[in-house]
């Protein structure tokens, strides 16, 4: 049994949620609590398995393009005639993302407990979504990667479109179309890469090893980059994000910001970096500039928002800019900082969206100006929110500080001017975070909300793990950093050596 689990751990993590979805479909639709509990169980098991993965992961193995650097590999022929394999494995780049995804999904099920309409469909789609997300992070076959990448779109479309806010239909189709534009370009690159490689292969490690066969490199790079940039989202492809985030139900916003956005940067690291290292290297400035624009532009937009959820959405754009800047620095610090920031932002932004959901459930609006003095009404809620916003603004001692500092440290070496500009983003971030806290929690108590109930047990359960992580990783980031260090080192070496 243990042997079986050990050998198929990635498959189990990926497909157990799907199995859970099938189970959910079999439960009668009026037994809502049974459905919710089933969904919770089928997201907790992958979390448990991810814990085992974390424990069993050998942090010293490196080598990005070699199979030796990849652990827990499973490889089976899927379509022999096209040499498509079911090829999954983890390395230091994907394992933080898997942990993040496994952690956030059960919390989202908890946060969706108050969904009453179409409970069965909702949980089925959510579990399908988790399978898609996990699949993207474990897949090492380009075709498999693409299938998972697209499989995610369908549940997301329905989850936003059915359970979303007033403009849900617009937001859902906008999300779908944007992502599809990106992914069809990726598809062409995939097919091209397959056809020029000899023997034809979709194997990402093999393609990376023989990446010199690829022609039209700059075009390929842009084809992939735009596809991923839309997902991140990088300026100027970000306009779907505020709509989707604002209209989506709380748990889906959490998944969107916490996990889906990371897929963009993950894809750039996994595919652009390894398949086209030379182009990546030559695009360093472009990427760094885009990252800096994201930081500053996102922060300024966030400051201008009146809607709390929109503010958090724009802050995501800003924070993902740090990831981009770190990646573009091509230093070990920058790269480690970038991936750590992906993880940290996942944790922090998930918290923020959960918190927005909490207040929205009670007050049924999200106008920042509409509150006031909530700190005295709901002290526990205020405490957690302060923690989350402080983490978002990069307060030393909390997790984001470390990753942002690493990013800026790395960027300063190679893009000094941009790093300086980006650093001013920290100030803007502090400004909008503190200003928001002040408007919502401090000042005179808005009498309309004088009797607002504080956090419930379920809400605490969904927030507490994240809050603990924020603090623990703020003082002791090594568990996560150690995971990625050697893999990212070899990835960086690959890119730096390419030019």
């Amino acid at each position, binding site marked *: 049994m243990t042997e079986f689990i050990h050998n198929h751990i990635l498959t189990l993590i990926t497909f157990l949620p799907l199995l859970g979805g099938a189970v959910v479909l079999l439960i009668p639709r009026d037994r809502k609590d049974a459905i919710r509990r089933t969904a919770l169980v089928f997201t907790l098991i992958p979390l448990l398995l991810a814990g085992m993965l974390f424990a069993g992961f050998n942090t010293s193995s490196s080598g990005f393009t070699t199979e030796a650097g990849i652990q827990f590999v499973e490889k089976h022929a*899927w*379509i*022999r*005639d*096209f040499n498509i394999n079911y090829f999954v494995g983890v390395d230091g780049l994907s394992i933080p993302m898997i942990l993040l995804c496994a952690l956030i999904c059960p919390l989202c099920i908890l946060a969706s407990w108050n969904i009453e309409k*179409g409970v069965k469909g909702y949980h089925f789609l959510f579990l399908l979504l988790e399978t898609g997300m996990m699949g993207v992070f474990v897949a090492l076959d380009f075709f498999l990667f*693409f*299938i998972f990448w*697209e*499989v995610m*779109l*369908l549940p997301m*479309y*329905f989850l936003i*479109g*059915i359970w979303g806010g007033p403009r*849900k*239909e617009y937001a*859902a*189709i906008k999300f*779908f*179309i944007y992502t*599809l*534009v990106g992914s*069809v*370009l990726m*598809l*062409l690159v995939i*097919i*091209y890469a*397959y*056809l020029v490689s000899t023997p034809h292969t979709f194997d990402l490690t093999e393609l990376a090893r023989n990446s010199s066969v690829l022609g039209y490199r700059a075009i390929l790079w842009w084809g992939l980059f735009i596809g991923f940039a839309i997902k991140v989202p990088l300026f100027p492809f970000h306009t779907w994000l505020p709509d989707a985030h604002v209209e989506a139900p709380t748990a889906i916003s959490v998944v969107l910001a916490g996990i889906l956005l990371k897929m963009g940067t993950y894809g750039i690291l996994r595919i652009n970096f390894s398949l086209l290292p030379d182009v990546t290297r030559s695009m360093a400035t472009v990427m760094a500039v885009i990252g800096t624009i994201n930081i500053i532009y996102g922060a300024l937009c966030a400051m201008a928002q009146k809607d709390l959820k929109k503010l958090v959405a724009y802050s995501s754009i800003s924070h993902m800019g740090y990831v981009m800047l770190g990646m573009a620095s091509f230093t070990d610090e920058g790269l480690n900082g970038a991936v750590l920031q992906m993880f940290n932002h996942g944790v922090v932004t998930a918290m923020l969206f959960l918190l927005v959901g909490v207040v929205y459930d009670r007050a049924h609006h999200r106008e920042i100006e509409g509150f006031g003095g909530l700190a005295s009404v709901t002290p526990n809620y205020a405490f957690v929110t302060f923690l989350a916003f402080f983490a978002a603004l990069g307060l030393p001692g909390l997790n984001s500080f470390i990753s942002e500092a690493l990013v800026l440290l790395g960027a300063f070496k190679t893009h000094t001017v941009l790093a300086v500009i980006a650093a001013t983003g920290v100030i803007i971030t502090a400004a909008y975070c503190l200003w928001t806290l002040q408007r919502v929690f401090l000042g005179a108590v808005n009498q309309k909300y004088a009797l607002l109930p504080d956090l419930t047990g379920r809400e605490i359960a969904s927030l507490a793990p994240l809050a603990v992580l924020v603090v623990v990783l703020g003082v002791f980031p090594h568990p996560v950093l150690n995971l990625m260090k050697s893999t990212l080192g070899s990835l960086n070496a690959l890119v730096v050596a390419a030019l």
Partner: protein
Amino acid sequence: MNNLESLTYFASEGFLSVYIILLLAASLLIRKEQGTPGLYYSLGIFGLAVTLALEIVACATRPGSTEIFHGLLRSDSLGRLFKILCLVSGILFLLFSLLARETSKRFRDSMEYTVLALSLCLGMMLFIASNNILMLYLGMELLSFTSYLLTGFVDRDERTTEAAVKYLLYGAVASGVMIYGFSLLYGLTGSLDFSAIRAYLVANQVSGSMLFISIAFILTGLGFKIAAFPFHLWSPDVYEGAPTAFSAFLSVGPKAAGFAILMRVLYQVFGVGAQAEAPPAAQFDWTFTIAVLSALTMTVGNLAALPQRNIKRLLAYSSIAHAGYALMAVASRSAFGISAVFFYFAVYLLMNLAAFLVAIVIANEYYTERLDGYEGLGWKGPQGAFLASAMAIALFSLAGIPPFAGFIGKVYLLMAVIKKGPGLYWLAVVAVLNTVISLFYYARVVKMMFLSKRVKGAPLSAMTTERYVSYAVLGVLTFLTLLFGLYWTPLDSLSKLTMNFLN
């Protein structure tokens, strides 16, 4: 091969011809009042099923390419596989006719309808297998005339009549132009036989412009059959006016047949790119022509589908767009392109007929073909949820979203194009951008069914036997759409067989 020997290669067509005559004779004996449509349709389905079985046996036992009946017809795997595809769609056509309200209960002329349907299938089979200009023309006319009749067969309203007349007029002009093109070709080469024409073109210098005109005219006729731009204008009106079951069939069977013969003519007569043949002057390069046609067809089809509010018109335009996608692989002028076209039509049959079947069930239930009839369908109990899910899967598959078979079909087509080399990369880009456009209108139907808050209209009525049959068929089609999206090796091995007609 002489006529007597040829008969063994002709078992399925021969059986079908005899069966049609027997059925006609039988219809004289059975009085109309006694016969329910069910009986006739079952007889028709039985006949087609036996024909299909014979065809499958022939496909398995007679590999290789043989000219039969002194070169009038050709027995090869390309033809046989496309015939199988057409026969499957023919069987489903009769099944759908049984399920659709307009052609099932109180439909007095089901006998004639069935005989016409069988004749249409016979026409398709001859058309696909033809190896001679005359045979091609005869097959096509048999196919066309029965199509005109079936379009106007059910006297619903004035739209039906309009559709039938329009179809007839367009069709007559197109086949006239085509036969003129063929007569030019005959004049140039002095032969009606494809192989002989090919041999002449390879051996002799032929006037380029004359050949070009001839090809253009032939393409007009075939383009009409597959509803390619700019010969697509008939199809939305015909699809809308014809009985829904027949529209469903038109979008798959005759279209696939048209593609089969298009490839046969282009590859066999006007040169094969895949084989390293000495490039004579006659190696007229039609790649670019077809590529442009393909790009225009898919773009026009998709753009015109955007504002549609009638499900049949929407599917008609979508079917134009899909012809454009498939043309892309024809343009690749390679053996892989041929198998890609077959693969695409196999999955297109599944997903498109599933979409049409849902349209039939909804039309039966709510007497509407408008998209508003689908509002809130996903929330109308288990039946509604099943129908809406099946429809959503079919539509997303048509849009080419994984993990459905339509996506794999698109990958085949794109692969064929990209394999061809940099010259056609632009076509691949056009195609994927078209996929995005198409998502708009497919997703609009899905939006109606699931995202709309209002549940419009009455709940679905209780289950009947017909409903069970519809759902079973729908379930099978949907299951296969999903299965071939995840594991398509069986279909891949089949489609590979089409390639060997080139030897």
